[in-house]
């Protein structure tokens, strides 16, 4: 085939997909960025309002705080789980892997609704606590920070496990045996061999979890209370309740910039493609 025909063929193949991305992703995004500079009192008024208000500052801090804690908790659970996965027999590895992958297929809404039923005032967890005498009265488990944390860790944990597992399986088991054989304790082997070699996977897991946590909407909106307002819920409020498009657009641009900054900072240590590949 001549090179020109080959090129034309490639362009034809890419045309429909590229058109979809441009029309449904890039154009709406460009429009949103434009809207953020369209406040009646000046192009930067929406941003000025966003950064001068104490309430909004608290929402920023809250959003980043929740994302940080969720990421930390997810990593602390994910690392030993991923390590155990490399040591399990084929059959058990299959079973545990199924448990990690299965939740990814199920809508976040369904998973969050389950937690609402479990954490309710008259829910099974409270009834167990009261029946066993651990507490006198049902606890307020729902509509607060800890409910948001539990729900978000539950949803995001698989995204942390998979990249760490991918890094751990590539480590030569001979290195760990050598470390032990040379007299290193389990802690030293972990700190000086296992952990450094898996750092890339841990960085990917952290980026991934943090990125998703930053933009979380459904789970904090349903499980959180008045004090657990996140940036996503704030943006929703600007659009749905206050109909303030410039403010909603400016807050969206800030959230997008934060997400892109996270990707830019960590891009050298991780593979962005891997982010999408951990999907089942």
């Amino acid at each position, binding site marked *: 085939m001549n090179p020109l025909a080959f090129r034309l063929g490639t362009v034809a193949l890419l045309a429909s997909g590229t058109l979809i991305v441009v029309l449904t992703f890039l154009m709406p995004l460009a429009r949103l960025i434009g809207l953020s500079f369209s406040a009646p009192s000046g192009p930067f008024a929406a941003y000025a309002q966003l950064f001068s208000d104490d309430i909004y500052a608290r929402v920023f801090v809250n959003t980043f705080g929740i994302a940080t804690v969720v990421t930390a908790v997810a990593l602390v659970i994910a690392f030993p789980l991923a390590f155990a996965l490399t040591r399990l027999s084929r059959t058990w590895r299959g079973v545990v892997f199924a448990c990690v992958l299965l939740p990814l297929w199920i*809508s976040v*809404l369904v998973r969050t609704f389950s937690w609402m039923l479990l954490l309710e005032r008259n829910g099974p967890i409270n009834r167990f606590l009261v029946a066993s005498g651990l507490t006198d009265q049902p606890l307020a488990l729902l509509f607060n920070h800890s409910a948001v944390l539990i729900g978000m860790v*539950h949803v995001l944990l698989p995204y942390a496990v998979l990249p760490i597992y991918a890094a751990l399986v590539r480590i030569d088991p001979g290195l760990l045996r050598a470390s032990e054989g040379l007299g290193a304790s389990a802690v030293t082997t972990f700190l000086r061999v296992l952990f450094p070699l898996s750092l890339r996977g841990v960085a990917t897991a952290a980026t991934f979890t943090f990125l998703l946590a930053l933009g979380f909407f459904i789970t904090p909106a349903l499980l959180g209370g008045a004090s657990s307002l996140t940036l996503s819920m704030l943006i929703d409020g600007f659009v749905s309740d206050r109909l303030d498009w410039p403010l909603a657009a400016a807050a969206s641009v800030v959230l997008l910039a934060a997400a892109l900054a996270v990707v830019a900072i960590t891009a050298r240590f991780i593979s962005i493609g891997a982010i999408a590949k951990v999907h089942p």
Partner: protein
Amino acid sequence: MTGRLALNGFVALVAAFLVLPILAIVPAAFSAQSFIRLPPETWSLRWWGEFFNDASWRLTLLTSLKIAAFTTLISVLAGTAAALGIARSGPRSRALLTGLFLGPVVTPVIVLAVAMYSMARATGLVGTVTALVIAHTMLALPFVVLNVGVSLDGLDRRLLLAAAGLGAGSFHIFRTVTLPLIVPGVVGGAVFAFVTSFDEVVLSIFLAGPTVKTLPVRIWEEIRLEYTPVVAVAATLMLALALAAAGASRLLSRR
């Protein structure tokens, strides 16, 4: 030895934490009472009858299936073609195109939702099936491109050269060699596109209207107010479909 036991116990606990809470909605759907209490004191199929006898619930289920079907069709056709195009490109345009197609994956969902909503308002598409199909296609396309891309990467180039050496034309090679070999990737991408659309909530909340509502949107609206076990029935249906899709995709990857 105790370390090993502790680690296995920890794994069992985390596996249970990942899977068991999700199942809480299932007993809630089989309650005989008019409110959700776990576990229900008396059991019945009352709320399943309630769900399927209610025309508005049935309509949301049909709308969800219809939108997921359209989304799957469009994103599989465009995504497969795009993956083939990316595989034929040079390394530089390859990186650029991959970045372009992955854009929606790294963008926070609420940002996509607000951007799309503003666009849909400007074009008068809010509350239409078209708007939801467009939004879901944007989300599903990257996963089809990735899935097909992975099968293309695993393709043995020598087979294509052999076919060309035997005198087959490029379309003939595509139809008889490339396509059969990437079918698992295409079908895997299709299953994932369907589930992405069927599960989607955030963009749908903004784009749905009083007459066009998907199942997750209706569930979202109900659980923010007072809800009955009929919502658990709807959620259980979503769970069942997701499990079926997960099973289908596992069978495909085994082959």
